[in-house]
């Protein structure tokens, strides 16, 4: 009699364990304290909306969560974090309610609410202490990991930053904003395919948002896929006309592809928003890059002078170190072969850069950029003064030392290639061009330079190939764009030669 019972019991045991195990493994642990399943569902919806930048909807969901569970402390805290989308008094009331209810929540939640209070009270020391305590007690908490990721990024430890972000993502796939972070991190370390994959994910999970398209535009811009970049920027602007980043970046790409008029138009259209946000320096820089692309050196010299004048009187401390303006001015003088003025501008640049470094010692990355800019200038100087070799050595050393990603070194590598070319070292010029073109395959001026170098070496086929890329990229360029005319002349010459 026991045998059938044994069999049934064994079968029941297997089924129960299997089902129970499946439920246990598939169940997601709750991260916040609430007695109501409906309130928790509303919380989750609010988080999803928040991560998709739909803050108004997130606020509504959180309010619903507090209605469903009036003792949902973290919902009140989260409402406070979205204070920009409500009255200040309401936001403060929410934080106070969270504090009142904080006795009944987990220690982690208590720390987070306390952080909110520290931020509201601008008690930064207390905030630091709380963040350290949170990191120490809950090293695997998502918010702690996010913090660590940000810090690692600031310290240029991109690999670690990616590691932290990926851990958060694995635990909470709903953190779609992390795909954006990962995209940019991968761009920084030169993993362009990974970057585009991450940004595609971001775009998939956050449909109808401008930011993903803007990010993809950046990725395509950095990899030389200018048509795709322009499409993405245009889509971002279409979705959100106030998305000023896309406007500015679109202007840059347009300039790169020789569509200077359109670039100027786009830039002007975005000017009010830039002004509103206080990003006029960016505007000025792009304006001057358009002039540079048009080889309007006088325009650059004049405009940079005006900007430098304004910068002197700026209330912002940072604005008093306008290194980029000095750079552009010096460069323009060099292009005009006004060595004396260029030298003067370069000296000022050095002083300003030193001053910046002294004033902002923590901003090492920016200082490093200024150093590269100086090297660029010196190299140009070397070319202009007929001793390009000096420039080569210095620039090559700086490039080797730099930890910037390949696309960020675009200008510098091009300058090195150009210096090689002007020094008659055509093969080296071709090699440098190849290094850049490996990353930004369709970089127009590099392709043109490579074509010229190949031409010098008699590599007609290679020269034609590069020329073809250049002309394809520049197919919509303005009629009078300087590089295009140059390229056409070379093409004619090469065609007749072949």
């Amino acid at each position: 009699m026991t045998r059938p019972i044994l069999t049934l019991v064994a079968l029941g045991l297997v089924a129960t364990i299997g089902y129970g195990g499946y439920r246990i493994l598939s169940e997601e642990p709750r991260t916040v304290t609430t007695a109501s399943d409906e309130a928790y569902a509303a919380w989750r919806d609010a988080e999803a909306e928040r991560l998709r930048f739909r803050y108004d909807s997130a606020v509504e969901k959180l309010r619903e969560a507090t209605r469903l569970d009036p003792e949902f402390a973290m919902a009140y805290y989260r409402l406070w974090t979205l204070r920009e989308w409500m009255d200040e008094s309401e936001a403060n009331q929410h934080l106070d309610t969270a504090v009142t209810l904080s006795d009944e929540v987990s220690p982690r939640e208590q720390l987070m609410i306390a952080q909110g209070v520290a931020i509201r009270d601008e008690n930064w020391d207390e905030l630091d202490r709380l963040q350290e305590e949170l990191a120490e007690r809950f090293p695997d908490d998502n918010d702690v990991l996010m913090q660590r990721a940000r810090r690692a990024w600031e310290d240029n430890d991109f690999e670690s930053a990616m590691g932290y972000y990926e851990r958060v993502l694995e635990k909470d796939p709903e953190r779609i904003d992390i795909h954006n972070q990962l995209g940019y991190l991968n761009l920084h370390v030169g993993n362009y395919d990974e970057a585009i994959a991450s940004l595609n994910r971001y775009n998939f999970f956050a449909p109808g948002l401008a930011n993903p398209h803007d990010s993809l535009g950046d990725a395509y811009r950095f990899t030389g896929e200018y048509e795709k970049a322009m499409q993405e920027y245009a889509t971002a602007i279409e979705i959100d006309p106030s998305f000023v980043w896309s406007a500015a970046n679109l202007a840059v790409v347009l300039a790169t592809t020789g569509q200077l008029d359109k670039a100027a138009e786009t830039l002007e259209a975005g000017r009010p928003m830039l002004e509103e946000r206080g990003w006029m320096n960016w505007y000025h820089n792009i304006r001057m890059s358009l002039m540079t692309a048009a080889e309007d050196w006088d325009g650059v010299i004049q405009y940079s002078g005006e900007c430098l004048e304004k910068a002197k009187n700026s209330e912002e401390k940072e604005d008093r170190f306008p290194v980029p303006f000095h750079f552009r001015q010096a460069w323009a003088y060099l292009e005009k072969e006004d060595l004396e003025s260029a030298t003067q501008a370069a000296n000022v640049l050095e002083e300003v850069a030193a001053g910046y470094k002294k004033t902002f010692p923590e901003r090492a990355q920016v200082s490093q950029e200024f150093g590269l800019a100086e090297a660029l200038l010196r190299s140009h100087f070397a070319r202009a003064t007929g001793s390009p070799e000096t420039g080569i050595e210095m620039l090559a050393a700086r490039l080797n030392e730099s930890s910037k990603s390949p696309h960020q070194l675009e200008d510098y590598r091009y300058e090195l290639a150009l210096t090689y070319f002007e020094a008659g070292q055509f093969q080296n010029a071709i090699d440098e061009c190849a290094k850049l073109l490996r990353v930004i395959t369709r970089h127009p001026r590099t392709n043109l330079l490579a074509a010229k170098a190949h031409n010098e070496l008699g590599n007609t086929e290679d020269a034609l190939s590069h020329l073809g890329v250049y002309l394809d990229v520049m197919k919509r360029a303005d009629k009078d764009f300087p590089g295009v005319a140059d390229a056409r002349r070379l093409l004619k010459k090469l065609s007749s030669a072949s």
Partner: protein
Amino acid sequence: MPVIFTTRNVLLAFGLLAVVAGAFSAYDATRSRPTDGAVWVLGGSKIRVVGTVPGGAAERAGLQVGDIIEGIDQQPIRSPRHAAQLLQSKNVGDEVEYLVFDRLANTTDTTTIRLESTRIANLRTYLVYCGLALIYFAAGLYVFWNNSHTIPARLFFLLCTLFLIYFVSASERSVFYYWSDVLTRNFGTLASLMLPPLFLHFFLVFPQPRDWFRRHYRWAIPLLYTLPLLYYAQFTYNQFFGTTLAKVTVIQQMTLGFYFTAGLASLVTTYVTSPDPTLRQRVKILTIGTVLGTLPFLVFNIALGKLLGREEFALFGAIPMVLVPVSFGYSIARYRLMELEVIIRRSIVYGTLTGITVGTYLVIVVLVGNTVLRLSGQTSQLVAIIATLLIAAAFAPARERIQGFLERQFFREKHDLQQALADLAKAIPSTIEVQQLTDLIRERITSLLHPSEFAFVPVNDGILVIRNEETHTALPMITEMIKRRSAPLTTDYLASELARLARGSMGRAQLDRYPRLRREMRVLEHAGLEVLVPGFAGERLVAVLGLGPKRSEAAYEGDELELLQTVAGQMAVQIDNTRLYQDALDRRQLEEEMAMARGIQQRMLPSSVPVVLGFEIAALNLASSQVSGDYYDFVSLLDGNMGIVISDVSGKGMPASLLASNLQASIRALAASHSQPGTILTAVNTSLYESTDPERFATLFLASLNIERRYLLYSNAGHNPPLLRRADGTCEWLEVGATPLGAFPGMEYPESEIYMAPGEVLVLFTDGVTEAEDHAEEQFGECGLEEIVHRLAREPAGEIVSGIRDAVFSHAGSENTGDDITLIVIRALASELDLDDASIAETNETPGSYTA
């Protein structure tokens, strides 16, 4: 244990569950739910594509094995379950955007998939399978319903039920992520994996068990079932964590195909090589049906379908399978096939339980390991392996305990048989009580050999008798065989004897013996006994141990039968000794009882005979070894006459003595208030009848002697009529009276009066005198009494008493006649002058006196 949990009910419940599962599966197969046509791994947090439905939406969209689905409908996927929920919220025909990571190209891209229906595409073929399933189940149920007490019928029902599940559930499903699909797929796969070993197992023991299988069941059974269960474990693992599509692989299909082929081969071999024509005739249809039904399945479904991927021929293999249940059903109905002696295959249960134990253990280890890793957040493979090993080690003792428990349930303990024998040899002689002895042997043998039945078969008058609830059935033929062989008798041997009788020339004697032996074999089978082990005490068959088949279904091995025989022999000797001991006890008890009864009897008798004027009285009471109820007494009646009583109470021993004592008290009490013997006897009769059992009665002669007038008034209640010798030498027998006292109610006792002239002798006696027998069994009789009384008539009463006594002893040839001898002699004297001291006879063994 509630009666509801019988094996029959449990199997029926299993069949019902299978029908419910099959019906659910059929319903589910015809339901329309949205699917993308991709097959995912069910466990983990990522959706890994391990297969696509050929021509399905996923394949058309470009999804490939190895792709990871990262998002569906703009939602990041948290788990396969989450993804299934997302899809379930859609409709058939909806276009859904998928975010797919292509592992080969290392790129992430979006694709749009138009959801299709999960309804089974080829409904017609599926309906054919459902029809087959119903036929199988119906055949199995029919066989089981009519033969549910036989194990082959149960086994066949199990096979047919598994076929039901297999046909209805095992059809290829397009998706696995709906829970109903997961369930159905698992049912079907488990059934398809368990069918082949069950098939092979069945034909290794049916219709005739294979010797090598019986000898090597220990490894053969686990090998049969553990392998398919491991396949299922692998299938389950692949469903949840694998990198390839969870399915029965080609190698596994080949293994399972081998099982089927081997099963067929076993059946065919049995049919071809069996020497028993009866058996061959009975299994012929079954063999042909099974071969014709199974071979196409092997060719079209296994070889072409599974191995070569040509599924279009599957129906050609499935439809002929209907021949299997049909041929089985026919054979069973026609030839009562399930009544053939087969060894019970309960080891299937053992094998299945072992496999389930192993499978459960593996599942627990994996699940606990994953839970631990997940909670600790570890991702390192090394940590995962170490954790799994540690958990496996932690659960190993529990698994071993369960396995040990199963071993003990199904197999005998690993005792040394010699040790067991030695233990029993010590215990048996010290056990005196028969019941205790049988309990001891039952407990030891049951725990050692785990027989399904164990019985002590009684031997009545040298013949075995099988008892069931209602009847006792003697087995003379089997008894004769046992006595002839003096060795354990198995049902196999009986079957061979039966076959021999069947084959031999059917002379008249054979014609009679065959059905008789067959009847007796059926009785044994019905009692569940397989082995009969005789216990002889010397040449005498004392008892037989009956054992059913072992629970493990293994045969009783030689050393086990020797053990049983030794135990049975010891048991027989001990039973004999116990009986002798019991007899001695009974005898002693009887002797003690007799001594007490004798004491009572002696105390009843008068201490001395009365001395009366004109009469000479002598009395004698000689008790035999078996005390009877004889007594005599002299009482004083109301009218002053002397009452003379002689009585013989029925029965022997203490009951007779007590009754006599009671009777004496009654007579004495009534004598004090009555004078008439008839009246006294009437009263005593009524009293005795009401106070005793009908079989208790007493013969009694009561006389009232008027000493002065020499008149004797008497009544005889069924006693030996006293002899009156007249002075002229004639004899009268004083018979007037009625029936013995206590025999019949309401009797009236008539009286008669006689005159005792001087010189007349009245002899009152009990039947111990007249019924004493010589060596030729001739009784002393009344003639003998008359003769001696005649001879001694002029002697004193005491001499007459002694003379009668001596004559009786002389006739019997000994003083121990086997019955009490009680005598009273009353001699009427001529005058007071005849009275002298010498005539006062004191022949009682105990002196006493009577005072009038």
